[in-house]
C-alpha cells in the first residue's frame, strides 16, 4: 500500500470519541445500563419534523423522515422505563455520570463550565423515541498528550446514547430501547495533520485516558469513533461509528486515497471543459423504450408499475468506470447514493451493454439522450417517487464531481474502507431541554473531583505489572484488552501463574480471532470455567487452546462438550508413568543406540499419547527420570 504524506495533501483528521460511561444508572432515569436479550413489549410511533424542518426543505432530511415514518420500538422492563418510551419527562441528570464526565474533563485539562445546559438535538431517523438526543457540553478546550504529539481538545459533552437498531421488518425500522439513554462522554479533538498511524495513536491514548478512570464501559460497541477527514481544503467527510481502534488508521488512509481519487476525476472533468451549466439536464423517461428489455432489474421495476429514467452526464465518458485507486470509482459512489433513496442501484454507460441490456438498447438510449463520444449516461429504475428524488440527488452529486469531494456522512466497512450512508445533515438543530433546569457546577463538586482523580494510565500499568509480575508489554496488552476485569477475577480465583493467564487472554485469544474464528462465541464465564478446571487438574494447560478454538468455531457450546468432543481427560502421574514405561520398553533398541540422545524422539511419541492430558513439564520430567533409570 502506498503511504500518504499528510502535509503534502493537507490531510486534516478530527476525531470525536464517544465512550459509554459505567455509571450506576442511565443518564436521565434509574434504569440500569445493560443489554437486554429479549424484548417482551413493543410499540409503534411516528416522528414528525417540527415546523422549522418543514420550513426549510432539505430533500435528504425529508426523505429520511418519510422512510422512518413508522418506527417499532422494543423494550424490556429491566432496561427501559417510561423515560425511554418517551412517556415520562426525564429525571435529573445522573450525578454519577456527570462526575465521570467532569473527571475526564479534568484529566484533559479542559475548562469545566460554570453552568451546564441540557439541550435537545433534533434526530428524526427514529433512533430516539423523543425525536431528539439530549446532550450537554460540560467543558471546553484542553489538551491530550499522545506520546510526543499534543492534540487540542475542542469540547467535552455528556449525552445519551441512541436506541439500538435491531433491523428492518417489512420496511419498518426496529429499535431496542436498552441502549437508549445510556450515558456517553463525547470528546471532540481539534483536527490534526498527521499520518494515519499517528491518528490511531491519538485515539488509543484518549481511550486509555478514559479507561484510567475505571468508570467507563468496556467491550465492543462501548466506544465509537467518528473520524472527520478532509484534504487540500476540500469538504469534510464524516465517517461515523468506527468501533475498532485498529480500523482508524485504515479508514483515514482509505478516505485520503478516495478523496485524492475524486480530486483526480475533478481535474479531468475540468480539463474536458465540463461546466456547472452542463448539469441543467432533464432526465428522460425511457420506460417505453426499455419495456421489452431482458434486464431482470428493469423487468422487476416495470412489473410493479415502476419506471426507467435516463440522464446524460456531459463529459463523463469513461470516468464512471475509471478506477484512479483500487476499489474507488465514481460509478460506485453514485450507486451508493441512489441506494440511500431506496433503489437497488444504477446502470452507467461505462459498464453497458451487460446485465441483460443489449447493444441495441444502449444505442437507442444513446440516441435518445444525445450522447456523444465524451459523454456518459445513467439509468435508474424503480418506483416513480424514488426514481424522481434519487435522480435529482444523483445529478447534484455528479455536479459535485466537478468540484471534487462532497461533504457527506460515510460508514466504515469491516476492512477499513468507507461507504456512503447519507448526505451530511444541515447545521445541528438544538434547543433547550426545558424539562431539566440548568446545572450549576459548584466549587465543592470541582474540589471533590480534583481530590479523587485516578492515577495516570502509565502509573496504573506499573502497579499492575508489579502486582501480577507481568512484563510491561503483557501488562499493557491485558490492561488495554476487554478482558482486564476477567483477568483479575481469574487471578484471584486460581493459583495459575498470572503471566500465563494474561498471555492466554491476549495472545492466544487474539491468535484464534486472527485465524478468522468468532471469539464472541466464547463467554467470559466459559473462559473462567476453563481456568478453574485447569486449576483442579481436570485437564492440562495445553488443552486450553483447543477448547477455546472449539468454542470459537461453534463446534461446541459448552466447556464440558468441548472436553468430551476433544476426548480430553486428565491422567494421573501413575498412569503417565505407566505409559512412559511402556514406550521405553517398546523403544529399547533406540535407547541402546542413542542413549540420552533418544530423549527428543521419545518425547514426541509420549506427547502423541499424553498431550493435553497431563502438564507438559511433568511429562518431560517423568520421561527424563525414567530414561535415566533405563540407562543405568
Amino acid at each position, binding site marked *: 500500500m502506498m503511504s500518504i504524506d499528510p502535509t503534502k495533501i493537507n490531510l486534516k483528521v478530527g476525531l470525536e470519541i464517544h465512550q459509554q460511561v459505567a455509571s450506576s444508572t442511565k443518564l436521565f432515569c434509574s434504569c440500569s445500563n445493560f443489554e437486554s436479550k429479549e424484548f417482551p413489549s413493543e410499540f409503534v410511533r411516528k416522528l*414528525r419534523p417540527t415546523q*422549522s424542518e*418543514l420550513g426549510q426543505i432539505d430533500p435528504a432530511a425529508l426523505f429520511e423522515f418519510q422512510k422512518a415514518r413508522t418506527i417499532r420500538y422494543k423494550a424490556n422492563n429491566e432496561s427501559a422505563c417510561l423515560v425511554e418510551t418517551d*412517556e415520562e419527562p426525564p429525571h435529573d441528570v445522573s450525578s454519577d455520570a456527570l462526575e465521570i464526565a467532569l473527571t475526564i474533563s479534568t484529566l484533559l485539562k479542559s*475548562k469545566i*463550565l460554570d*453552568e451546564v445546559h441540557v439541550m435537545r438535538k433534533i434526530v428524526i431517523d427514529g433512533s430516539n423515541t423523543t425525536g431528539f438526543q439530549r446532550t450537554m457540553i460540560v467543558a471546553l478546550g484542553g489538551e491530550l498528550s499522545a506520546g510526543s504529539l499534543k492534540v487540542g481538545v475542542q469540547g467535552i459533552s455528556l449525552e445519551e446514547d441512541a436506541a439500538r437498531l435491531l433491523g428492518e421488518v417489512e420496511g419498518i425500522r426496529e429499535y431496542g430501547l436498552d441502549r437508549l439513554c445510556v450515558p456517553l462522554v463525547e470528546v471532540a479533538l481539534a483536527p490534526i495533520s498527521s499520518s494515519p498511524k499517528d491518528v490511531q495513536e491519538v485515539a488509543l491514548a484518549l481511550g486509555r485516558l478514559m479507561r484510567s478512570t475505571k468508570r467507563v464501559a468496556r467491550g465492543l460497541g462501548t466506544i465509537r469513533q467518528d473520524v472527520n477527514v478532509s484534504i487540500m481544503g476540500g469538504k469534510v467527510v464524516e465517517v461515523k461509528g468506527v468501533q475498532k481502534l485498529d480500523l482508524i488508521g485504515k479508514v483515514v488512509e482509505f478516505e485520503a486515497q478516495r478523496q485524492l481519487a475524486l480530486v483526480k476525476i475533478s481535474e479531468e472533468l475540468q480539463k474536458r471543459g465540463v461546466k456547472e451549466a452542463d448539469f441543467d439536464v432533464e432526465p428522460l423517461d425511457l420506460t417505453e423504450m426499455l419495456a421489452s428489455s431482458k434486464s431482470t432489474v428493469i423487468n422487476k421495476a416495470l412489473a410493479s408499475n415502476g419506471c426507467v429514467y435516463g440522464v446524460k452526464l456531459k463529459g463523463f465518458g469513461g470516468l464512471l468506470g475509471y478506477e484512479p485507486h483500487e476499489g474507488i470509482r465514481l460509478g460506485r459512489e453514485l450507486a451508493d447514493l441512489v441506494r440511500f433513496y431506496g433503489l437497488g442501484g444504477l446502470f452507467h454507460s461505462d459498464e453497458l451493454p451487460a446485465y441483460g441490456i443489449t447493444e441495441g438498447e444502449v444505442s437507442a438510449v444513446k440516441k435518445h439522450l444525445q450522447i456523444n463520444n465524451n459523454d456518459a449516461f445513467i439509468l435508474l429504475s424503480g418506483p416513480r417517487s424514488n426514481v424522481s428524488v434519487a435522480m435529482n440527488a444523483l445529478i447534484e452529486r455528479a455536479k459535485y464531481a466537478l468540484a471534487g469531494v462532497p461533504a457527506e456522512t460515510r460508514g466504515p466497512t469491516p476492512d477499513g474502507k468507507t461507504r456512503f450512508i447519507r448526505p451530511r445533515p444541515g*447545521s445541528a438543530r438544538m434547543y*433547550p431541554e426545558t424539562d431539566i433546569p*440548568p446545572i450549576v457546577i459548584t466549587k465543592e463538586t470541582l474540589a471533590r473531583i480534583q481530590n479523587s482523580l485516578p492515577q495516570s494510565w502509565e502509573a496504573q500499568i506499573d502497579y499492575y505489572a508489579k502486582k501480577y509480575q507481568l512484563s510491561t508489554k503483557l501488562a499493557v496488552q491485558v490492561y488495554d484488552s476487554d478482558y482486564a476485569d476477567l483477568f483479575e477475577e481469574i487471578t484471584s480465583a486460581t493459583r495459575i501463574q498470572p503471566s500465563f493467564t494474561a498471555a492466554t487472554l491476549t495472545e492466544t485469544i487474539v491468535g484464534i480471532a486472527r485465524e478468522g474464528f468468532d471469539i464472541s462465541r466464547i463467554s467470559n464465564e466459559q473462559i473462567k470455567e476453563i481456568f478453574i478446571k485447569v486449576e483442579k487438574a481436570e485437564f492440562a494447560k495445553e488443552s486450553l487452546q483447543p477448547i477455546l478454538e472449539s468454542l470459537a468455531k461453534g463446534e461446541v457450546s459448552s466447556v464440558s462438550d468441548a472436553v468430551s468432543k476433544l476426548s480430553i481427560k486428565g491422567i494421573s502421574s501413575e498412569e503417565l508413568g505407566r505409559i512412559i514405561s511402556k514406550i521405553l520398553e517398546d523403544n529399547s533398541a533406540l535407547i541402546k543406540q542413542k542413549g540420552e540422545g533418544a530423549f527428543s524422539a521419545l518425547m514426541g511419541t509420549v506427547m502423541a499419547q499424553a498431550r493435553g492430558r497431563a502438564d507438559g513439564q511433568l511429562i518431560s520430567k517423568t520421561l527424563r527420570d525414567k530414561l535415566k533409570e533405563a540407562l543405568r
Partner: protein
Amino acid sequence: MGELTGYRGASLKVLSQYEISVGDLILVKAKGTEFRGSLLPRYEHADDRHVVLKLDNGYNIGIEVSSIESIKKLAGGQKPSFVAPPLPKLDPKLPKVSILGTGGTIASRIDYKTGAVHPAFSAEELYSVIPELARCAQIETEAVFNIYSENMTPSHWTKLADACTKKARSADGIVIGHGTDTMAYTSAALSFALQGIGIPVVFVGSQRSTDRPSSDAAINMVSAVTFAARAPVAGVYVAMHAKTDDASVAVHLGTKVRKNHTSRRDAFESVNTSPVSYVIDEKIEIKARNLPPRKHSILESRSKFEEKVALVKFYPGFDKLLIETLVKNGSKGIVLEGTGLGHVSTNCYVAIKKAVDDGVLVGMTSQCIWGRVRMTVYSTGRELLNLGVIPLGGMLPETALVKMMWVLGNFANAEEQKKLLQNNLVGEINERSPLERRSK
C-alpha cells in the same frame, strides 16, 4: 421591550454595563478563556449569577457573572425569518369544523436560535404544520381564551359553552383544544351545558408538547377533526391516544373520562364503560350503541355553574370540621368521595345532618374510581342514606362535582335538583357495569 428577558440582579447589571441585549453575538472573557456566542434570555426562576450563551455549535452554556473580565459585542441580533411552506389545496366540499382554543399549544414551531416555541394556531398555520387536516375538513379557528388548564374555572366553562352554541349554528363539528390536566372536568361541564346539541363537540389535547417530533398532538388533532367532521353522532367527547402507540385514538364520552396517568399518551381512560369510538388512520369505528345522532337543532344551552360546590375526599382521621366549615361558608353542594361502596366515618354524621338540614345538596361517590356506590349493603351506608346523602351510582367524582354545579346553577327547585342529580342525563350514570375493567 424586554431586551434582557429573565436577567436580574448581578447578571442584569453586568449586561447593562456592556450595553448587550438578548440576541447579540458577543465575546465573553472569563477565567482566562474566551467564549463566543449569542446572548440568550434567562429562564424564569433561574439564579441571577449566570449569563447564558448559545455557542456556534448550537449548545447553550452558562458563564458565572463574577468571573467575567470583559464582554465585547461583535454583532447585533438577527431576527429569525420564517417562510411558511405552501398551503395544501383545500376542498370546498369538505365538512366545516370549528377549532376553539382555550390555551396551551395545539401546534407550534421552534426558533432554534433562541429556543423559543411559537404557537401555531391560525387555520393557515395549522394546515401548514399538520397538512393532513386539509383532507379532513375545512377548518376555522378561534381563541376563546388563553389560560393554563389548571387555571380554568366554572365561569370559563360558561364562556366556552356559549361559544359552542354560537358555532353550532354553522359548523358540522367543533374541536376544542384543551390542556389535559382539567380537560375531563370541562368535557363533563359542556356535556351538561350543551344537552341536545346536534353535532359532535370533541375535546383534544396532547401529553407530549408540540415542539417535539414525538408529540402526540398531530395524530390526536387529525383524529378529533375527523370525528368532528364525519362521525354520525352528536354530543361531547374527548379524543386522545388509545395506547402508547401512534396508531389509534380513542374517543371517550365527555362525562365518563378521566386522566389516569400523569404523563402517558394514553392517560385518558373511560371509567365504568368503554371508549365509544376509535379513529385509526382517519377512519372512524363507532363501538357504542345508542349515541345521539346528528340532527338540526337550535340549541338553548343552560351554561350556568354554581361555584359554591366542593369535592371532599374522605380519609382515615378525616376532620369533620372541613364539612362544617364548608357549610358555614355558604356551600350549596358537597360531593363526598367516600371509601368503598360509599362510606365515611360515623364521626361525620352530625356535620352531614347539619348540612342537609341547611339545604346543602350532599352526594356520594367512591374514591375507588372504578365501580358504583351501593349504600344499602352496610349499616354505614344505610345510615348515610337516612341522613339525606344522595347516592350517585357509578358517576365519576369529578363528573358528579360538575353535574352538581350545573344542577344548582340552572334549577332552583330542591326536589328537581335532587331528581336531576340522580337521573342519567348524558350518559354520566352507567346503568350497567362492564365485565372488563379496561377495554383497550
